[in-house]
Structures are given as structure tokens and as C-alpha cells.
């Protein structure tokens, strides 16, 4: 997760530092790194080849900027190019002018068509439409039942005249479904078809027949974000078979990097219209090309983090705590609450991984044991409310009691209390500093716009420098030679302006 393109490029550019300009040789040197990154993200080989060629051309072109270091510059170009390809023309569903709009779903087995039908049904309903789902997957055992259940959950009508399990003619069901929708005045018909392989001529013909019979306004090709190199072949087969008009990417809630999106988009030219990001019927959203680009490049996904956070956090409570934090009256109790909310989001190391720029600390983060969280919790829970409110009162005998109560050593309690004060100080600084960490070298973040771009550039340059010094620093930190008092100095970091600041490495020595 942490072995990002950025890290790799930065190491590839180690010798080029300070050059500030890209030569042909430089670009060739990193082309392979980009290639590996894209292949690891499952972008199809042929697409990678074309893509690299374009990148080389662009990187050599007039856009060379002196304000970014070479690695950032290449990443910016790659990222921009990705967004451009993925985004292209994004468009909404085309609704029919007269009569019901017909949306047909097609894809491989297990891509998530039936589930998607339910999600689409719910989404359409929320858009003020009156959708009807048609169960034309008569192949898979109990697919019809599944659609009925899903439809019921979504509160959408399901038309299922045939029991399925290999019985019945899907073309006929689709046609009858359309007629039924006309009769019952539903304005959108979603036809769920059976999963099929691109090379299965018979079933592809059947899909083409369904398409011909219902004349859909949209044919959505449903594809799993985890799919590998086969995405191209499959997409081509479906394009030929059913001539899909849009693509839906499913299972984006996993950690697959979803290079298939790029492959399908560049091979077929059809837009990616929706993304499905979970098992709930509401986990369905429009497709965000910028996020996808970051994901393919494995650049840390700030927006996903934010979304997850929004889900896990009680906003009011968080706002209150934020205020407390600013005022310096943040207690262990508040900390415990927030920590619990965070642990709902997944493992701590994963969350840290989502924060861009953390790649350099991947070792520390990977070594972070999530059980530490439990330990911290146990210690805090073994304190009295008064102690939690004001940890300063924790004296020797209290420490002994707390350690006994939580099954830890006295030094663990000591450490936690000390670190809490340090951390509180740090959090206060960060809070005053104005907010969330952003990411130089992640230019695609929406909302960044041009306004932020101007400000960011000098910052990015700094980052490069900072990173350069880092391995040495890290080594020093690891060997434990760094004097402790430096930590105290480092705490007084300035929090003004656009200065990026660094948490003192010594902080971890304290632990």
C-alpha cells in the first residue's frame, strides 16, 4: 500500500536532484517506474505502452516547469493525463423522451449486476423516477430471487415472470417487462441480464437479442474494479456484442487500484458513469475521475479518507472536541472517544496509509501494531473520570493502580501520560496551523483549482528538499542517537503561513 509511485520515482530521481528540468534521459529513466506502477494497478499492457509514449511526449514538451522537482513534475503530468483520459466527457443518464427509459445491464459473472440493479433502482427512485427492475437473469440459480429481495430492500417494483434457474427466455422476459412498465406507468426499466463471458458466442448473441428487443437508452457495462489484464478483451467483446454506452465500476470499496477503468476507457472510449463502493444499496455514486487517477497511481486517497471519516464520526461531537483542542482543554476522555471513532474506520495503519505523503514513513506505519490501540484504551479506561479530565493529577500511586487495572506496566502508563501531553501540544499546533494536511504532488485534488496551485508550487519544492534529508534523519532516529532535548525545540515549530511542518522525529524516540 505504501510503496507508491511517488516513492519509487523519488528514488529513481535521487541523482537528478536539483536539476529541476527534465531531459530525455531523465524521462526514459523513470518511464519504467511508471510502467511498473501502471501494470501493478492492472492497466492493460497495450494501454500502458501508449500511455507511456504520450507521457514522454508531454514531459518533453513545452510544459516543463522549473518550480517542481523532477519526480513531482512527472507525477503531475501522469496524473493530469490520467484525469484527462478518465474524465473526458462525463455525462448523465440519457432519459427517453417518450415512454419508459430502458437501462440494460451487462457484464461478466460476479461483476455485481444484480446488486447494481438494486442500487440503480434506489438511486433512480431518489431522482424522482419510478423505476422497475426486470429479472432477465434466468441463468444463475436464484438470481431472480436475489433481484426480488434487492428490489424489496430498495422499495422498487420487480418484474419477474419467470422463476429462473435455467428456465425461460430472457428476451421474452425483457420485452414483456417493457410492456408491463408501460402498462403500470413506470418511467425507467432496469433490465438485469445474466453474467456472460465475452467469448461465449451463444450468450453474447442472447444479450444482443435482448438489446435489439428492448432498444435500451443506456447499456451499462458492469465491471469489477479488481479485474486484471482481461479487462480489455472483455470490454472489446461486450462492445462488439451489446455496444454498451457507459461503464459502471463496482467493488471500489476494496483496495484494488482499478487500472481497468483506464484500460476500458481508452480502448472503448465509453465513459465511466458510476462507481459502486459498498454492499449497501446506498453505496452508489457518480464516478470521480480525479480520485480514480490518484488511486491508480496509488497516491493516497484523501477524499476516501474524508468520506470514511464522515461516516464514522459524530460531526457535532467532533466539532466540540475540535474546539476543546483549540482551547487546550482536550482530555483523555475526548481522546478515547475520537480514537474509538477512528478505529471504526479500519486499522490505524490503513488510515495513515490513506493520508498522502505518509509513504516516507511506511516502515513506522507498517510496524504500528493495532493492538496498541487496545492497550491505550485499556489504560485510559482504568483511570478515574477525574484522572481522565486532568491527567496532571496522576501521581505515583495512581499510576501503580492504573497499571494494575489495565494489566500493563507502570512505564506504559507513564509513557502514555507523557505522550498525551506532547500529543496534545502537537494537536493544538496542528489545529491552529489551519487544518488538514494536504499533499504537494497531488495536484488532481478537486477544489484545489488554480488558486491553490500557485501557492503550492514553492511548497512542493521544499518538500523535495525535505525528503532528501530524510533517510539520514530517519537513520539517526532509528539508532536512537538523537538527543531528547531536540524534541522540545522541535515542538515549537512555526505554524504560520504555508510552511509545511514536520513532526519531530524525536517524538517517537520518546516512546
Amino acid at each position, binding site marked *: 500500500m505504501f510503496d507508491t509511485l511517488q516513492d519509487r520515482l523519488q528514488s529513481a530521481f535521487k541523482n537528478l536532484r536539483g536539476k529541476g528540468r527534465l531531459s530525455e534521459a531523465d524521462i526514459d529513466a523513470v518511464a519504467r517506474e511508471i510502467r511498473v506502477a501502471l501494470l501493478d494497478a492492472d492497466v492493460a499492457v497495450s494501454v500502458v505502452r501508449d500511455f507511456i509514449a504520450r507521457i514522454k511526449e508531454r514531459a518533453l514538451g513545452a510544459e516543463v516547469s522549473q518550480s517542481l522537482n523532477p519526480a513531482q513534475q512527472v507525477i503531475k503530468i501522469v496524473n493530469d493525463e490520467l484525469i484527462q483520459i478518465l474524465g473526458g466527457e462525463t455525462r448523465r443518464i440519457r432519459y427517453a423522451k417518450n415512454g419508459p427509459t430502458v437501462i440494460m445491464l451487462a457484464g461478466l459473472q460476479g461483476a455485481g449486476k444484480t446488486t447494481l440493479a438494486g442500487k440503480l433502482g434506489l438511486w433512480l427512485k431518489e431522482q424522482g423516477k419510478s423505476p422497475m427492475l426486470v429479472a432477465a437473469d434466468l441463468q444463475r440459480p436464484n438470481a431472480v430471487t436475489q433481484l426480488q429481495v434487492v428490489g424489496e430492500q430498495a422499495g422498487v417494483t420487480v418484474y419477474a415472470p419467470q422463476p429462473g434457474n435455467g428456465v425461460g427466455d430472457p428476451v421474452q422476459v425483457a420485452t414483456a417487462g417493457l410492456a408491463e412498465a408501460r402498462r403500470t406507468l413506470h418511467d425507467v426499466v432496469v433490465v438485469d441480464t445474466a453474467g456472460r463471458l465475452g467469448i461465449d458466442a451463444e450468450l453474447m448473441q442472447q444479450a444482443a437479442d435482448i438489446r435489439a428487443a428492448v432498444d435500451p437508452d443506456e447499456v451499462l457495462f458492469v465491471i469489477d474494479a479488481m479485474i486484471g489484464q482481461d479487462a480489455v478483451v472483455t470490454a472489446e467483446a461486450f462492445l462488439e456484442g451489446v455496444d454498451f454506452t457507459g461503464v459502471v465500476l463496482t467493488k471500489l470499496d476494496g483496495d484494488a487500484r482499478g487500472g481497468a477503468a483506464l484500460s476500458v476507457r481508452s480502448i472503448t472510449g465509453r465513459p465511466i458513469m458510476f462507481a459502486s463502493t459498498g454492499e449497501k444499496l446506498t453505496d452508489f455514486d457518480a464516478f470521480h475521475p480525479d480520485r480514480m487517477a490518484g488511486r491508480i497511481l496509488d497516491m493516497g486517497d484523501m477524499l476516501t479518507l474524508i468520506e470514511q471519516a464522515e461516516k464514522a464520526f459524530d460531526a457535532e461531537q467532533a466539532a466540540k472536541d475540535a474546539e476543546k483542542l483549540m482551547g487546550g482543554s482536550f482530555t483523555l476522555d475526548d481522546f478515547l472517544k475520537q480514537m474509538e471513532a477512528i478505529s471504526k474506520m479500519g486499522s490505524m495503519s490503513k488510515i*495513515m496509509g490513506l493520508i498522502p505523503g505518509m509513504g516516507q514513513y511506511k516502515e513506522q506505519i507498517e510496524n504500528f501494531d493495532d493492538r496498541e490501540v487496545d492497550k491505550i484504551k485499556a489504560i485510559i479506561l482504568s483511570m478515574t473520570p477525574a484522572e481522565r479530565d486532568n491527567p496532571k493529577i496522576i501521581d505515583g500511586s495512581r499510576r501503580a493502580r492504573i497499571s494494575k487495572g489495565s494489566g500493563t506496566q507502570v512505564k506504559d502508563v507513564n509513557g502514555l501520560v507523557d505522550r498525551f501531553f506532547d500529543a496534545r501540544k502537537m494537536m493544538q499546533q496542528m489545529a491552529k496551523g489551519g487544518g488538514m494536511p494536504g499533499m504537494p504532488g497531488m495536484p488532481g485534488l478537486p477544489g484545489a483549482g488554480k488558486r491553490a496551485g500557485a501557492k503550492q508550487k514553492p511548497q512542493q519544492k521544499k518538500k523535495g528538499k525535505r525528503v532528501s534529508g530524510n533517510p539520514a534523519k530517519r537513520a539517526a532516529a532509528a539508532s536512537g542517537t538523537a538527543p531528547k532535548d531536540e524534541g522540545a525545540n522541535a515542538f515549537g515549530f512555526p505554524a504560520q503561513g504555508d510552511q509545511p511542518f514536520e513532526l519531530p522525529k524525536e517524538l517517537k524516540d520518546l516512546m
Partner: protein
Amino acid sequence: MTTTALIIVIAAAVVLLGGGAALVLTRSRRQLPPAPQTRQIDRADEAGEPTLISPDPEVPAEPGPAVDEPSAVGTLERPEAPQGRLVRLRARLAKSQGSLGRGLLSVLGRSTLDDAAWEEIEDTLLAADMGVTATDELVSNLRTTLRVEGITDPDQAKAALRAELVRLVDPTLDRTLTSTGTDGKPGVVLVVGVNGTGKTTTVGRLARVLVADDKTVVLGAADTFRAAAADQLQTWGERVGVPTVRGPEGGDPASVGFESVQRGIADGVDVVLVDTAGRLHTKSGLMDELGKVKRVIEKQAPVTEVLLVIDATTGQNGLTQARVFGEVVDVTGIVLTKLDGTAKGGIVIAVQRELGVPVKYVGLGEGADDLAPFDADEFVDALLS
């Protein structure tokens, strides 16, 4: 000061407090994109208490796992013996994977192997989802072999390539299904995987393989989450006269697993096959649930085999899947499904290479008996034929 900022600050603080990672944080814009509507992260939350407090399995609180006896014994299908299946597998593989083999051989057959030719070989292997690391290794080994032995003859080059591929697939691994339990208890096979890879279908087909081997089987429908998953499994079971133990939809999968093994012991069957709900390996709550299913089952009888089902179309993410599932339930074998498409399933080479977990079965086609034991030599021969 936004909520998000706080969250990040706290996350950072937790890591600091716990493990001591040094952090670099930079300032940035204040405007955050609009918050999406609130969603719950995983369904473990939704299931709430019932999933956490395991009810006494002997007295189920809800309607309780009902066992569906096969209806009419006379109409049972007679599954095809697994021995005959390899032939069909070969024929199919030859059809779907021929392009890989042909591509490679036409390159190797050239009189000189220049850099462009090697790149082509590399691309061909990459296109089979073999992954960058495995491909690099294979190509560099092959290059060395050809140079050291001075091979220029296409046939010899082909043999060298085959040897390399076989070495990567490693035929020495034990690929038999551990389906016999100890102490007279049934063997317990737990089938796991991400969503939509074909777990239920695999369980159904595996039941047929075992029935064809004259073993008695009980199916456990521990997929209580997906709509109609238990029905799907039951349909499979009924076709070959195998009873299915199922629980209420949305119920605790661990209790269904427990019940089915209990039933298996009571009936004295040979194998209990437990189907689980598809889950993405990134959902920690669901992975914990899976760990619990296994733990609870093991109160009855040890789980003899954990099969991870991987879809042949899966790309490099398959490796992460195998790793995470391996950590949670100690995967002992892999079933590679949907190999009949154009997908090459090269990811299993990477998985096996990294984690040492062998592929045990290969699933292809729509037919009920389209599951065959995996054979490394056959697999590679099919790649090259």
C-alpha cells in the same frame, strides 16, 4: 477547523501514542468537498448485538437453521467423476489460453532474440496477469538459461520456457483436498473469498465432486448476508441429494457454520462444506466475522481445509486478497474460477510464488461439473499447446 482536520490530527496522535511514527503534515486548503451522505461502514455494525453474542447454538432463538432434506431421491443427478474432467479442462484451456502460448512461441522461434523480442515476451506474460515481479524473474531466468546453454533452436527454447513456467507453478506442491477429519469427525472445508468470485457455485460443484467420490456431504450456508445465497446453495445440494443447513437471513454466520458441522457429526458424514459470504478483504469488521466463523466451527471439529476462491479475471489485487485472507483464516488452498473466459489466471502464479499456497481446483464453464483438480504440468502444457 473542520471535523476532518480533527480526525486526521487524532489519527496521527493515536499512531504517535501507540507506535511512534513520525509524521509530516502540511497545510493546505480549507475547503473540503461536500460531505457525502452518511453511510455505515460495514454491515457488522448493522447486524449489531446478535452477531456478537453467539446464541446457544443448540437452542436457536430465531426460526433456526432449518435443514432441507432433498425432496425426491429418485430424481438425483449423478455427477461426473472428477477423473474425466481433466481432459475437458485441457481442451478448454487450449482454446482460451492458446494465444499466450502462441505469442510466446512465435517470439522464441525467431532466429535472433533482440531486446524488442524480450519485451514482447515480457508483455505477453504481463498480459496474463502474472505480475511484474514474477514476469521479471521468469524473463531474466530464461534469458540466462538461453545464453548459458547457447540455445538458439526454437524447440529447445520452448522446452526452457516450459521448464521455467513449471518451476514457477511448482508441481511438487500437495494439491489434494484435505477432506478427511480425525477422530471420526468429518473433514471441514471452509470456502472464502471476495464478492462475486463464485464461492457458492464452487461449493456446489465441490459437493458434486465429493459425491462422485462416494463421500457423504453436508452443506452449510453460512452466507447469511447476500440475498438468496442460501437458496442458491440449497438448489445445488438438492440436485445431488445433499442436505443444506441454513440459518435466518442476516443471522450469525458462525452459528450456521457451527450447526452444519454439528449436524455433520451427528449424521456421521465424511465432509462438511461451509460456504461463507463474499467479503472484501479491506473490511476489517467482516474479516473479523470470518475469523469468528472459523473459531466457532473449530469448537466442533477442526477445519481441515480453507479454500480461497479467486476469479481468473482478478488482477494484481488477487495477491493482496490472498495475503489478507491468509492472515485471518490461514488459507490452505486456492480455487481458480472462471478460467474459461479469455482471462489467463496468471495471478495464481504470483500468489503461489509469494505465499506458497497451491491452487487445488480450477473452475470453468457454466456446467455443474466444471470443476477439475489443478495439475501444474497440465496447466503449463495447456499454456504452451
